């Protein structure tokens, strides 16, 4: 029950997905749609676990007075705030809230306000820290130590300059007298279109073989790490 049934389920659903791919008959296409629907129905439930675990983790932190436990209240506050404003759409029909022009749900003005002025700035800012990190990483890690590192460095610099208008501006100023214009953009495009493309394609082919082999192992029950221990 603990191992065999999941392995059988995995095999059956995997095989159905493969065989329906090759069978255009309406019955098999119905089966294919139904299996797809199962996937979609089951997925949202998986989210519940995430939330339960998060609540558990921060609950434990507060109970045990772990380091920075006070901040766990901030987590709960943020979460509850969003849920209270976004969830109870059924209240939109009640006269009490209607009379006061208060609405709930995804498109409620308060929910959108919270999203626009709290969530977006925080996410976008956290992400933008990367600009600083990348500048520092480029400075400290980009040394022409070996032949390979030198190639990485040079192509990075060319693409970087080709990506901004000042690259061509400098090129055209320096090479003004020659017939070659927009050389920086050209070089960038050439690198992307040729050596970059070849390397990417090699990687894609390799990864695709890996994905296929892993999928075959999963369906055949050879790969069962997802079952965990026991």
């Amino acid at each position, binding site marked *: 029950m603990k191992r065999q049934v999941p392995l059988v389920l995995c095999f059956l659903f995997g095989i159905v997905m493969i065989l329906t*791919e090759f069978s255009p008959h309406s019955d098999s*296409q119905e089966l*294919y*749609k139904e299996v*797809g*629907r199962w*996937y*979609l129905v089951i*997925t*949202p439930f998986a*989210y519940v676990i995430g939330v339960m675990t998060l609540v558990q983790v921060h609950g434990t932190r507060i109970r045990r007075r772990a380091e920075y436990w006070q901040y766990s209240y901030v987590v709960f506050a943020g979460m509850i705030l969003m849920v209270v404003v976004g969830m109870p759409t059924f209240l939109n029909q009640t006269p009490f809230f209607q009379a006061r022009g208060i609405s709930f749900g*995804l*498109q409620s003005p308060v*929910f*959108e306000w919270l*999203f*626009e002025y709290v*969530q*977006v700035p925080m*996410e*976008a800012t*956290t*992400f*933008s820290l990367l*600009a*600083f990190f*990348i*500048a*520092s990483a*480029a*400075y*400290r890690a*980009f*040394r*022409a*130590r070996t032949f390979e590192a030198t190639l990485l*460095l040079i192509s990075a*610099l060319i693409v*970087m*300059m080709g*990506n*901004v*208008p*000042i*690259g*061509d*501006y400098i090129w055209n100023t320096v090479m003004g007298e020659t017939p070659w214009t*927009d050389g920086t*953009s050209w070089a960038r*495009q050439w690198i*992307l*279109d040729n050596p*970059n*493309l070849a390397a*990417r*394609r090699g*990687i*894609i082919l390799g990864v695709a073989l890996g994905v296929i082999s892993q999928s075959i192992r999963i369906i055949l029950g050879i790969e069962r790490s997802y079952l965990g221990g026991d």
Partner: protein
Amino acid sequence: MLEKIMNMDRRIVFILAGLAVVIPTLLPVSLPITVSEPTQKLYDYIDALEPGSTLMMAFDYGPSSLAEPEPMAEAVLKHCFDKKVKVVGVTLLIDAVTLADQLMQKVAEEKGAVYGEDYVLLGYRPGGFQVILGMGSEIASIFDNDYAGKPLSEIPMMENITNYEQISLLLDLASGSTVELWITYANAKYDLTIAAGVTGVIVSQMYPYLQTGQLVGLLPGFLGAAQYEKLINSSGKGTAGINTESFVHLLIVGLVIIGNIAYFMTRQRGES
């Protein structure tokens, strides 16, 4: 001295990078932009669509990375509304849906497009590749109602749109690996024509798909947004941004060169 330069506190680099952004933002400059081929291809494709055809726009970027795809989405939406091409919005990312809603409303208001006739936002459904596959057989099997909760059957624009057969182009505005998902599941299985507008991070890996024609066009990051804005003659955040960007790139290139000079000098000294 050289050691000091080599091991410069990273906070100094942070300050320099910050200044390279703040100063050009305060004192904007405008440099000529060269349009690259992949952007031109996307523009030509959309420009050649007949009025009344439908473009599906997948808003697969979250608030964390909206800087690049949002100006692209805005420029393409403008182009579509001008050309009377209908737009269906969807997203595979949970935190993208409010962004898509706000942006579509904003551009539609500007261009006088009507919800339900010129554009629709279907919203988000969990399930990734299954959402893509499901829409291939029937959009209504995944989205029985739009983002606002209105049944698709009551939306005039969706009357004749049942699956990918009626979609002339899917434009995936992505900050992650969704383009590959669309290619693997919508293009390979349903022959849906796909183009992408992606953040700088994933530009390089799109080229193999561009060469095979699995992608018919590509907007490469901020540069792509600026190029598209140039093509539709409406400069916006992309154009302003790519000009500012120039100075940061100059700074980083300069830093890398200085770092390498210092590195070679210390190495030579070590050898002698």
